[in-house]
């Protein structure tokens, strides 16, 4: 039986996780383990690190991220994920929407009337 907290987390992830992935790539490209560690460290955004990878595949298919190979100092070349122009645009749109959305939710949670 799924707890109410888990259900709420699941619904929220459906809406925002892909934008969290895009946001984590805004500053610089990152490889899979790096992203999984960043997004999964508190188990809030990612239920498990492995679920990141199908999402990354879809983001690449949608043209929001691209992949490149970069040399590694500790092994074979690594596949890096980076934002495309469309990815930057999608992230900008989400960023502009998120603040008023969050304010509206906070407002209702704090004082429904």
């Amino acid at each position, binding site marked *: 039986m799924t707890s109410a907290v*888990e259900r709420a987390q699941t619904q929220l992830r459906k809406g925002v996780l892909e934008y969290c992935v895009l946001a984590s790539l805004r500053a610089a490209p990152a490889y899979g383990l790096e992203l999984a560690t960043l997004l999964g460290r508190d188990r809030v955004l990612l239920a498990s690190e492995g*679920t990141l*990878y199908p999402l990354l595949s879809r983001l*690449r298919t949608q043209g929001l991220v691209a992949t490149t190979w970069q040399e590694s100092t500790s*092994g074979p070349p690594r596949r890096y994920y980076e934002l495309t122009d469309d990815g930057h645009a999608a992230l900008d749109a989400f960023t502009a929407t998120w603040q008023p959305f969050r304010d509206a939710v906070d407002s209702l949670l704090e004082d429904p009337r």
Partner: protein
Amino acid sequence: MTTDPVTPDGGARTPQSGAALVAQYLDDLERALADADPAERAETVTAVRDHLEDALGTRPPLDDARDVIAGLGPVELIAGAATPFAAAHGSDPRARTTAHGGPTAAAPSGTVVDPTPWTGPDPRFGPPPSTEIPPRLPGVALGLATLSLVTSLAWIVSWPLAIAAIVCAVVHLTRSEKRRGMAWTAIGLGVLSFAVSLVIGLFSGSTVVEETGQGLAVPVVTGDGPAVAGLVVAGSLLPGE
């Protein structure tokens, strides 16, 4: 949260090493993704394999492998986050079955199932187009350019190598933003080598190939200059004078 890998008939297996556990986990993941969109399945399995290699290396201790696999989560959870093949190709996304033919359970909590239709090419007709440039191309170009420069005195060998180096480097530059410095270096060396071999070929002793009485070709140095060299390049055989 961890997954104990099981055989298809449900029997538990007990890997004896970290590498065996990793291999078993990847096998289980591939099976769990049997109903996923094929391109997404291949990409997901590859990415999870990269994750494991980055975290563990090639010969991980069993306990370390267990910890990293626990972080990745059960393969069923990962499969639940993938786009079903039916959804990707326009059928009812709920008409899924497991690898063993049974109905699929509801997506576990914490998964994100995106029903967005797959818009890429059908991977059954070949791998999806990749935007990834093989990182070796600039290295190949530089190697060819260097070899061309080293063999400049043998100008017949050198100039094709220089051309090949330049072509490789230009192809890389038109397709990737990575390692451009190496590609430009290869172009520079290639041009230099081509010029050197050209000068040697034209002015420092043009070579005429002459047929001998035994049917063998031997090089003969003459003073005929560029015109004779051009004939040799074109494959003509001139009698020695």
